[in-house]
């Protein structure tokens, strides 16, 4: 059984770092109808460079602050965040234009166990916007491909039009270094891929349970179903990591909004081993 006392990633930013640091929007990419990728550059001093799986608190002046995962690791202090417009603060963030200034706190939380996955097969499963926090993992794998065994990426989305990073998915697929599979809930004219839930694509994957590690990010129901499928096939629960999403407000384990039983998603997570968190995710209203 995993324990959270083990070092699992970079630590939380200092508790005193509650002041948003101004960053300027230098690039805006509209990924889908309601999803935008922003590249931010510090106006003066930046924040500590994040690692894959961590998040920052993004502050839109006059609107508020929300936790957003990093969707790529950029150089020179730049930050890349992919944000879905689910109203409120995210609507304001998604409407950002080049030159706008946003506040940034962080980075916070524990990242994906990329080092632990070296020498293993890796199954990456992303649903919807859940591909954003996992994209840096794929980048890291492709940068050091020989360090990993068989690597599979299964991406689920509501429709073809809502698949994130479409061009990049095509590029990864054509490189043949990662087994890329996509599946949508609903087909649309011209869609030649699979239709169904992500586990439909997992069925066809060859999995060696003893040497497989998995990273899963998406809606909680989806993560539960995927983790169940993988453990049914013999993958150890401790070898499966999920990214838990909760209502994070302070991001420094103080306000208690993101508490999941004995854990805080903001500092113990958001990436948590399945054996630690599985029983908690079936507790209603937790």
């Amino acid at each position, binding site marked *: 059984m995993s324990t959270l006392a083990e070092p699992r990633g970079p630590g939380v930013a200092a508790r005193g770092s509650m002041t948003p640091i101004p960053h300027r929007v230098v690039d805006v990419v509209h990924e889908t109808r309601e999803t935008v990728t922003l590249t931010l550059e510090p106006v003066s001093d930046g924040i500590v460079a994040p690692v894959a799986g961590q998040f920052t608190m993004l502050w839109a002046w006059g609107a508020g602050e929300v936790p957003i995962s990093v969707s790529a690791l950029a150089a020179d202090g730049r930050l890349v965040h992919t944000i879905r417009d689910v109203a409120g603060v995210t609507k304001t963030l998604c409407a950002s234009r080049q030159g706008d200034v946003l506040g940034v706190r962080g980075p916070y939380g524990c990242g994906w166990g990329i080092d632990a996955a070296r020498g293993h097969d890796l199954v990456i499963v992303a649903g*919807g916007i859940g591909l954003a926090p996992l994209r840096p993992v794929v980048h890291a794998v492709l940068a050091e491909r020989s360090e990993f065994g068989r690597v599979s990426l299964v991406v689920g989305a509501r429709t073809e039009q809502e698949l994130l990073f479409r061009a990049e998915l095509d590029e990864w697929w054509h490189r043949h270094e990662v087994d890329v599979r996509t599946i949508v*809930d609903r087909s649309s004219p011209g869609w030649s891929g699979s*239709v169904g839930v992500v586990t439909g694509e997992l069925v066809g994957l060859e999995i060696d349970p003893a040497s497989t590690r998995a990273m899963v990010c998406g809606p909680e129901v989806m993560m539960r179903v995927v983790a169940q499928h993988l453990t049914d096939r013999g993958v150890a629960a401790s070898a499966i990591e999920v990214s838990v999403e909760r209502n994070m407000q302070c991001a420094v384990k103080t306000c208690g909004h993101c508490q999941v039983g004995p854990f805080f998603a903001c500092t113990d997570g958001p990436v948590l081993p399945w054996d630690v968190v599985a029983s908690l995710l079936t507790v209603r209203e937790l």
Partner: protein
Amino acid sequence: MVVTTMAEELAAHRFFRTIPSDLRERLAGCARNVVFAPGERICVEGTHASGFFAIRTGRVNVGIYVPHQGLQVLETRHAGDVLGFSWLFPPYRWQIDAVAGERVRAIELHADCLLPYLEEHPAGGYLLVRMFAQEMEETIQSTRLRLLDVYGRDRVHAR
């Protein structure tokens, strides 16, 4: 060249892996290998359901034809899946259309051969029906999850 028997091919398929070898041998007697080209129709709604398919490789799009809109794909069946439940129940008519999404290799099992045997051998019949019931449960659960629209905007956060 390695020659495999139909029973061995069934044993290599996920669906049949756990059944007793004597039943598998019997099923092999009702089976044949089939290949479908991309876009080829595998079954047609309303026509006689003469059996089912165990998909070995490739992908099958399952759906319903809508006038002037073509096949509306509702789910995809993959290698390791079985295709077709209608052969088990009267009126033995396909309820769905299925088209090969890519080149598909499958094992076709014939109802005319299978059903009389299963009626006479209830233990084997019960086992096979249980296996199909499990497939149906998984299909229903998959449908439920999609009805939940887990990727929908009201149920997920912005990340």
